[in-house]
């Protein structure tokens, strides 16, 4: 049998922001926070499934939040309740279990996987601060507010402004590379561990094709299998001065 290449029923689908879609699919698979699935709702074209990270999950269903950027996501966005789509996954390592007071800091679509991660950490009794950056408009505000101990939204500005990272024991981040790089640098200076979730174009999703290779301190790694979550300093290492 395959990698849970099951057809999932669409349980709900709605546009929650400009070209931002919240999709809930019935599935018996159970992901970890920070993992992703390859979604596919077409036969021939586009060729490849779309890697979409997990926004939330509970018994029998997985939720995704994605942005309409091309043909594949356009097709996914047009799905209706009860339509079927193919889910392959869950793939990737997901965020690690970190202890203490945790900061999750995201930007853009990178906010989505932090939702599930915050919820899981909070449920384990940890203090979890979510700090999320949105370009123009906040989406799924209520859900994000409920996911963490404290949630702070930044619209149109730098999500790192005014941040005192020394308040935390670890930081998890997902979003644009310059943002993640800044967070890793701050965490390094504060002496706390940081973890970043990398986004790359993918094909197989399981580590065989090597099209999503990313460079790390310890050589080439497969984003889909060794990642998408890496220790921050594994990725943002090129110029040691940057993080020292």
């Amino acid at each position, binding site marked *: 049998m395959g990698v849970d290449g099951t057809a999932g029923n669409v349980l709900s689908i709605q546009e929650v922001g400009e070209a931002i879609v919240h999709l809930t699919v019935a599935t018996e698979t159970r992901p970890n926070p920070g993992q992703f699935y390859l979604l596919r709702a077409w036969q021939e074209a586009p060729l490849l499934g779309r890697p979409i990270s997990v926004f939330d999950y509970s018994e029998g269903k997985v939720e995704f939040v994605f942005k309409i950027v091309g043909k594949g996501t356009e097709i996914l966005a047009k799905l209706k309740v009860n339509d079927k789509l193919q889910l392959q996954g869950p793939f990737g390592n997901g965020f690690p279990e970190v202890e203490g007071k945790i900061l999750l800091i995201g930007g853009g679509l990178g906010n989505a996987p932090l939702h599930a991660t915050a919820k899981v950490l909070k449920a384990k009794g940890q203090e979890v601060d979510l700090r999320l950056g949105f370009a123009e408009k906040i989406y799924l505000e209520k859900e994000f507010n409920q996911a963490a101990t404290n949630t702070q939204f930044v619209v149109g500005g730098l999500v790192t402004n005014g941040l005192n990272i020394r308040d935390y024991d670890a930081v998890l981040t997902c979003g644009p590379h310059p943002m993640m790089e800044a967070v890793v640098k701050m965490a390094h200076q504060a002496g706390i561990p940081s973890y970043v979730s990398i986004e790359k174009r993918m*094909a197989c999703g399981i*580590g065989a*094709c*090597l099209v999503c*290779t990313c460079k790390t301190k310890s050589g080439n790694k497969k984003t889909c299998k060794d990642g998408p979550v890496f220790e921050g300093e594994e990725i943002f290492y090129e110029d040691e001065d940057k993080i020292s």
Partner: protein
Amino acid sequence: MKTKIKFLDLELKNPIIAASGTFGFGEEYAEHYDIEKLGGISYKGLTLDPRDGNDGIRVWETPAGMMNSVGLENPGVDAFARKIWPRIQDRNLISVVNLGGSTLETYLEGIRRLEHCDYDILELNISCPNVKAGGMAFGTEAKSAERITRAVRMTTQKRLMVKLSPNVGNIGEIAKACQAGGADAISLINTVQAMAIDTKSREIVFNNTYAGLSGPAIRPIALRMVHQTAKAVNIPIVGMGGISNADEVIQFLMAGASAVQIGTAFFTNPDQIFQIPTELEMWMEKEGVQSLEEIIGIV
């Protein structure tokens, strides 16, 4: 098994071989699938020394295919022989080692260092379009294709299959030259050299400018080239290029291939690929075909 075929002196339980570069060394897929349902695996292309592969974007979709520019990222022949081969050698599968190179000497030295591995077929890659030193120069001209095939033939006793590039004028001539050089079999086609431009950034997508196109888009080209090659040589052919189901496998067999390789389709619907042997059996029953060998080259 109904779908078994004879290939050289080997018996494949079915004609489906995973194509090099799409299946790693089989280990990732083995975590999720029963990979021994396949007839064989052509492993990720090796080179003498390890390679990090290309920088920048490595994959780009097209309407009916995908372009890749991985650039032969691989651990090198020594790491394969020492660490990987011992882990994978006992599978009930035909094992194909795909080897690329930059100079004749790097090919020959690579083969020597793999000699103690008891793999089934050496697939000589003289057709990788994604690195300047990927060996495609050897495969685009009949004389150089013959020269490298002959040199390899004199270096190894392994079954020798030469993987050809579609980026040539006369595929039959190149295939004939490889046969004259001592090849036991031919596999084709490697990816078609292609290009993409990102109109938003006004830049060429791939750092290496050109990339290799695979998937359904190239299937009719591959089928034509397998047919032309089958008319030109009398050694077995392994056909590949955009194959994703049993009907397409049958087309390639009818065009003259004795087996096929499947690559890109593993990314789109791996479950379906592992079903192909069963679908072939159903087709054989329906059509009253006793052995797939009956249909090889019938068109």
